[in-house]
């Protein structure tokens, strides 16, 4: 599984960071998402799914 982030869509709400700081961070400059680990495994897979569902701007998706 791979996490795809579209920073053009990201509105920087940081919901992904709150969901899993091991997977996501935000740029200091414009607040948009930075994916720290785009190929999560184990428990992090569920966290990645939760982040995709909660992201308000459909900036995150998963390639299964």
């Amino acid at each position, binding site marked *: 599984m791979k996490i795809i982030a579209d920073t053009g869509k990201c*509105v*920087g*709400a*940081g*919901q992904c*960071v*709150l*969901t899993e*700081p091991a997977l996501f*961070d*935000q*740029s*200091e*400059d*414009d*607040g*948009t998402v930075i994916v720290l680990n785009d190929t999560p495994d184990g428990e992090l897979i569920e966290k990645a799914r*939760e982040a995709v*569902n*909660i992201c*308000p*701007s*459909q900036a995150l998706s998963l390639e299964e």
Partner: protein
Amino acid sequence: MTATEELRMPVARTCPFSQPEQYVRMREDSALHRVQIPGGKQAWVAARHEEARQILGDRRFSSDRFLPNFPFLAEGGAAILTNAKQKAMIGMDAPEHGEARREVLGEFTVKRVEAMRPRIQEIVDGLIDELLAGPKPADLVEKLSLPVPSLVICELLGVPYGDHDYFQERTMALIRRSTSVEDRKKASEELRGYLGGLVTAKEKDPTDDLLGRQIVKRREEGTYDHDAMIGLAFLLLVAGHETTANMISLGTIGLLENPGQRATIEADPGKTLLAVEELLRYFTIVEGATARVATEDVEIGGVTIKAGEGVLVLGYAANWDPEVFESPEKLDLERGARHHVAFGFGPHQCLGQNLARMELQIVFDTLFRRIPTLTCTLPADQLPVKKDATIFGLYQLPVTW
């Protein structure tokens, strides 16, 4: 609900612990409804979670408050829009909106907000010290709910807290539905005038606060605009204190009325952040901000919303949608309610949400740890609720300990 029955919005919320009956019926009947709104106009209303997220996430719905059918819930809502330059971020669409939002986003990232934690804790502790040293019973709204977010947003923006009576009064006039069109205009102009003076002072001497930093940054980029800076200050000041204040009051009464639930966060403060999400879902204080206008024909929930028609997304109704939140009328702090829409959804989702979350988390942890005997001196159903405001909350919360 029969087709001939006329639905009206807004519906006054009278009890913090139950949903207006019209919301319940609308959600049960169909995904979308046609309603009468102030000013003799009509709009669509979405009351279910699924359609709420669809509409708010769909860029074919515009937030432009200058569009002719923009569904204002307060009469005279349009009256304070006097020129296009005053367009605030909440009234912009892509790509203008994204650009404006990105200018300030850096100030609101999870990390930046986390860095403010010690100072916010200090503010909350100081206010609780004062509360404990003062007479009882006391009004928690005055002693805690309002000053916490007010002090935080003032420090962040670089607005003198000593002026809070001035801007609090005007903010209240703006969000009270019963405010006359004339008074609404006056309050808005005075607030703008006040912030204009502040911005001018910071232009001469840019202090190290959000407004000062933005002035420096935008000048370097060559995008600086005096009116836009006033607009930003206006939006953040208004959005930043009344909202969180109401959540503090309602969250407190929610926790006081549900001692069993409160015990779960007292036993494990690690759970407070999730508990805050449930309190946000349960009370969902803001509704008018999620109004939109369709820019083309869009099919949602089986009906076609025509280009130019207004839509109201009822976050509060959506957050009590039993399809998504089982037994929504139950306050369940361990529910894991993170997919609520209390901060909106889509590109306009609240910019200050992480700051609000942290303020609430610190307040609830600190308040009940330091005053475990806190009680409300009025039965919950006699509390003065803001029936007439576009942001729901309590006018007073008398407490003793």
